[in-house]
């Protein structure tokens, strides 16, 4: 692609372009015979942050995991800019950072792991890791083992690891739910920071409406199963957003609207 810049390690740097990035068409998925998704279509725009929110058991994580290839689909097609998943570089941040990191290697080697898997040479790996460390303004010792770090630090390492290969899409599965409020604010801020710097497409599953709205350009609200799209709300409050943004009228209104739909769906 001609419009892609590359960095020191030769990895393409993402550019923000306002067009569809991920297309989901005719998705079908059933569990134990009962359909969860049936003839489900979804467009995810490029270079935007999409939050997925919905009632318990509607399959928010399942939807994201099918897009990310962690769960197989029964039927349907999912394409990234027309490419298949195999041709696409993705990053994934798990809710359970403790179980997602490799405790036998140091935090810094965890971050370098996907780069090594890509077959990059030592100097390139080091260049990219150094860049990430600078970007994230890391104040703790990455030469420690993951279990020696706090929860927030571990999740930071997870995010750095996911971003290391400069993914085209970053998936985050409830990235805050194992963190306390202080760390949630910190990580949320970091994610917005990274987004503003790289413009990477992000898909976030959240069970907390505040987190879902705060980061999002678009909020995907799902119904109870069989799951359909209840609403796909845009939210274009200017960035960078900060804790004060949460009291702005557009934030309050969007959150209230989302809550209304959510409650309607829960009752349904």
């Amino acid at each position, binding site marked *: 692609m001609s419009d892609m810049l590359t960095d020191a390690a030769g990895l393409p740097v993402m550019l923000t372009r306002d067009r569809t990035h991920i297309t989901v068409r005719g998705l079908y998925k059933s569990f134990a015979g009962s359909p969860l998704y049936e003839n489900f279509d979804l467009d995810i725009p490029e270079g935007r942050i999409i939050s997925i929110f919905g009632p318990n058991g509607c399959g928010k994580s399942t939807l994201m995991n099918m897009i990310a290839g*962690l769960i197989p689909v029964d039927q349907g097609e999912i394409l990234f800019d027309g490419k298949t998943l195999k041709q696409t570089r993705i990053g*994934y941040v798990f809710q359970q950072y403790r*179980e997602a990191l*490799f405790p*036998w290697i140091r935090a810094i080697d965890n971050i370098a792991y996907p780069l090594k*898997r890509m077959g990059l040479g030592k100097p390139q790996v080091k260049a990219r890791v150094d860049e990430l460390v600078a970007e994230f303004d890391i104040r703790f010792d990455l030469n420690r*083992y993951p*279990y020696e770090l706090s929860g927030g630090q571990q999740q930071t390492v997870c995010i750095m690891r996911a971003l290391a290969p400069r993914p085209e899409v970053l998936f985050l599965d409830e990235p805050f739910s194992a963190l306390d409020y202080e760390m949630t604010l910190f990580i949320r801020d970091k994610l917005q920071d990274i987004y503003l710097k790289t413009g990477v497409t992000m898909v976030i599953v959240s069970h907390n409406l505040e987190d879902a709205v705060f980061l999002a350009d678009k909020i995907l609200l799902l119904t109870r199963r069989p799951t359909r799209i209840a609403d796909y709300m845009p939210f274009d409050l200017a960035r960078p957003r900060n804790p004060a943004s949460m009291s702005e009228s557009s934030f309050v209104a969007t959150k209230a609207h989302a809550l209304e739909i959510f409650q309607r769906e829960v009752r349904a």
Partner: protein
Amino acid sequence: MEPTLTRRLLPFLGPVLFFVVWYGVVVLGLVNKVLLPSPFETVAFLANSLVKGVMVIDIWATFERTAIAFACAAAVGVPLGIALGSSETAYRSVEFLIDFFRSTPSSALIPLFLLIFGITDANKIAIAAFAAVLVILFNSAYGVMHARKTRILAARVMGANAWDIFRDVLLMESLSQTFVGLRNGISMALVIVIVAEMFIGSETGLGHRIIDAQQVLNVKDMYASILVTGALGYLLNVAFLVMEKRFIHWSGK
């Protein structure tokens, strides 16, 4: 610093109490002196035998057999366990066999091994290795099978292929359980070696020494040899715990 000192001395309380009770029983004449010598006599005998070197030959013989049996068991059990563990279908197909023989007291197989190997050193080593290999194999397989699903998914999403996942996740993930197997395995090997030394014609070894002493009512030697056997088992266990702490630093965290 009072409380910490008391705390540090706590582990010694049990052994001290043990010797006090032992001494009391002897002094009060609750047990025939022919059957139970005083702890001082026993420890003095033990020290004397160690210095003179007569017992060292037996300790070494038992240790050597145990070590060889354990090495064979580990060399077979760890790779085989990891291989079986990484294929659920393979493991399920042999699971019953493993569980059955793991539940069979290996000493029940001594006569069978006698038929195959005769009254040799190889026999003692073979049966101890057989007993240890199942424990080791089971634990290694279990360690691989219970690898965190999230970690496997994380590796896959980062572009790891099946071999990468095996080497970087499954193998590492199984190590702490493998160590549990190795630790239990060497204890098992020692138990079987001691039994084999008692009942399969033997010239050396602590098992041979214990039963010989008993036959001629040399009770001081018998008790001293039992203490040494216990110490050997304990030290082997501690050695593995120390190794585990050092190499599997993430264990339990």
